[in-house]
């Protein structure tokens, strides 16, 4: 299945792109998508996506369309996933 991913904030800067497409097996979940992103982009990006224990970072905001989801959420063909790493003021 095809997933359209949009990156925001520090994640976008680290990847160097605002969006990408991934082909995943049917039934893949958000955590599987994050692993695919980390495999494509390496350790610096993986550090933004996963905690030290290898689970999806609790501070990573994940949305499918406009609805917040978590790492266990199953994706469907054509989903648009938005990923936002934490930002603050100043």
């Amino acid at each position, binding site marked *: 299945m095809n997933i359209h991913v949009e990156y*925001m904030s520090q994640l976008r800067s680290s990847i160097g792109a605002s969006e990408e497409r991934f082909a995943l097996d049917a039934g893949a979940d958000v955590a599987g998508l994050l692993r695919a992103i980390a495999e494509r982009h390496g350790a610096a990006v993986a550090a933004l996506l996963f*905690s030290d224990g290898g689970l999806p970072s609790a501070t990573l905001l994940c949305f499918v369309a406009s609805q917040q989801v978590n790492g266990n959420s199953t994706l469907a063909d054509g989903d648009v996933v938005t990923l936002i790493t934490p930002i603050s*003021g100043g």
Partner: protein
Amino acid sequence: MTEPTALTPEEQAAYEWQLDVPGFAEAGQERLKGATALVSRVGGLGGVVAYELAAAGIGRLVLAHAGDIEPSDLNRQLLMTHDAVGTSRVRSAERRLKELNPRLVIEAVPENIDATNAARLVGEADVVIDCSPLFEERFAMNSEAVRQHKPLVECAMYELQAQITTVLPGATPCLACIYPEPPPAWKRRFPVFGAVSGTVGCLGAMEAIKVLSGLGEPLAGRLLIMDLRDMQFRMMTIEQRPDCPVCAG
């Protein structure tokens, strides 16, 4: 929450353009005049929040910001001036705000929010606007706002992007629902334009005005995300964490 305070003829004249806003009127202005807002940091983001609240006629501002003005503040911190580099940020903010609105009561606190002062400063406010860069400040404010049932406007920015939501304790996700732990890879210094901090600062002020006056619908349980690079504004739904250590139960 706020105690409406009657307007003077001078105030009626000063605010006549917004007194015509449907759903606001003199009753909304009186609620604003009777209200206190805590703005944490008066830099690129909080300075604009404070300026818009001062212009709108809020009665009292509590401003918390430590440190002195640095040259690198001046691309975005509109309450700071070139001739005041090296002097107190919060005093500069106080001076600029009083120039705009001499009726405004200001408590200028030359400290950043932390666990030792959050209870007192949040306790003085009817609404809190979080414009802080450090997550420990943000978490301290969030915990106290939830504990004291004070609405909290959460503003943030990065590069040409920004986001904002309003926490209504007991009804919406709090900051610890959004970020349940300090973000490990977050960096204190980040790229941003002053026009980006100003954009989200204006929205933060508008949220505070709405919460205080009862006007409109605040961003409760919704996260507005903005990308000014292509001018996309999107509304996302955010969820409470059932195991949130701050607001659950």
